[in-house]
């Protein structure tokens, strides 16, 4: 599982890789991914699969909303909260 601090960079890397063909060269933490067409609905679902694979969180359809996925900062906040919740739920060693 990736470390908490790197979620932002993982997401940024994924987005830059998929958006570079559109001429996107940088994405700030608080830039809207949706307004400018950096990512479309297909891209969102690819990003979710990517997060599920690399970070190991499970994302339900009802969680794929603009509140959780509008910016890189939103996504990090959402993923960290998911990870914290699943850590709490896990039995203590």
């Amino acid at each position, binding site marked *: 599982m990736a470390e908490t601090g790197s979620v932002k960079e993982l997401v940024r890397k994924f987005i830059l890789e998929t958006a*570079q063909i*559109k*001429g996107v060269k940088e994405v700030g933490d608080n830039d809207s991914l949706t307004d400018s067409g950096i990512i*479309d*609905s*297909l891209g969102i679902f*690819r990003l979710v699969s990517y997060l599920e694979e690399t970070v190991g969180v499970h994302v339900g*359809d009802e969680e794929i909303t*603009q509140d959780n996925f509008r910016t890189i900062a939103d996504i990090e906040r959402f993923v960290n909260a998911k990870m914290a919740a699943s850590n709490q739920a896990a039995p203590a060693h």
Partner: protein
Amino acid sequence: MPYILQQLLTESVKQHADKPAVWARNRTLTYRELNERSNQLAHFLRKQGIRKGDRIGLFFPKAVESLVAMFGALKAGAIYVPLDPNQPADRISYIITNCGIRGLITTEDRLKLLDPAAIPCVEFALLTQESANSGSQIHTFGWSALNYFPAGHSPELDATTTDLAYILYTSGSTGRPKGVMLSHQNALTFIEWCAEMFSVTCDDHLSNHAPLHFDLSVFDVYNTIKAGATVHMVPDDIAIFPASLANWIEKQQISIWYSVPSALVYLVLHGKLDAQKLRRLRIILFAGEVFPQKYLKQLAQILPHVELYNLYGPTETNVCTYYRVDRARLPQMDKIPIGRACANTEVFGVDEKDRIIGIGEVGELFVRGPSVTPGYWGDPEKTAKMCVPNRFQGNFEEKMYRTGDLVSPDENGDYYFLGRRDNQIKSRGYRIELGEIEAALLSHAGVCEAAVIAIPDEEIGNRIMAFVMPHRTGTTTAVELQQHCATKVPKYMIPEQIDLLDVLPKTSTGKIDRVTLAKGVRPVAV
């Protein structure tokens, strides 16, 4: 009976003055506000020298001002041209100069994208915000400039139903988009049919999902205004999240939804659609591409109370056929038809021997009637090729439109869509000429030959893939070519995958062999 589109507004305002006409980005305009603001805009445009038949470009993200701009332009006698705010500046500048847009209604950040030297026909810009300090060389006004013009009435206008109302640009096979001219009559023929067919009333809430340069939006806007209903423009940042979109449909109490099937497929797959929450929804219309049957069946099951209609028609004819989904028959059907002609429209298939086809036969679909476009802006050659004399009746001269779509009618008189005669495809409902993408690739200095093919895809219709032979190996990369395309064509036309080959396979006649290329396609990485 209204014969020009703005009369729909001036009629509805009499009864529904204080009702919201449009909702966008958490703002609304009442019918009175829309009528008064569009009157002011019309006077403003006249003051800038705009006369009947002049073109006004609408270049900004959807907002309540979109409707003000449309009706304001029409009231001034102008023809409006919706420009996709997300398309590359190069393509937008081409459209602006192609139809000689004299005035732009835009925002500060969009205006900055355009090089004034590339659009010398533009004499002024009106920003939909207050600030008029654009720093642009183009003479620019802020929205508050409208305040100084009369709100109570529109300028005098001599107009007839055959005057042009708007121009919609679609992908062109020769590498440049082409402008489909639509008259008031073209639009009203469709709107009159809709009003009766779907019994749109002032209690309805219509969605507007399609971009304004896409003809699906004509239904949303003008049916709403005719009925005294409310149109709700789907926010961009909600449209791509199915769960958020489903909540939005519930919250706005949408009763009539119209979109491309791919948007509905995402709602079915990931939207957690709930019939109880969406109980206000009474009609779903879809058009623009084939709805994958398995998802249509799921949609019909999830929302048993909603009537489903498949609408069909190229931009050149508005909608020309319709089919109401028959729930009793749907489970046994392999595909649904595009159906039969709308009121005041005639359609028929013509085979290779130039005969009108009968049941079960295959032919190209032709359309005649008042919904058919007068042609393409500034392109009489293309117009003559697509809008051809009706040789099946000799009583008087008239034109009919050849769609390029192959169809076959069944015993009920419903037509089925079988495919295209040419290289036009649909992806996410967008009409795309593969030739326009090939031209974009070929405009790159490193490209010697290029072929673009479509790979059928269940969720979005088609994926786009390109094969390129560079002048010299190693001089360019797939990503560089994709970035180059991004400056020439809309995002939905950029090839998802570009393979660089030493040589492209050829047919015996020396053409690029697209069939062989398509056979060798690797699965697109997801």
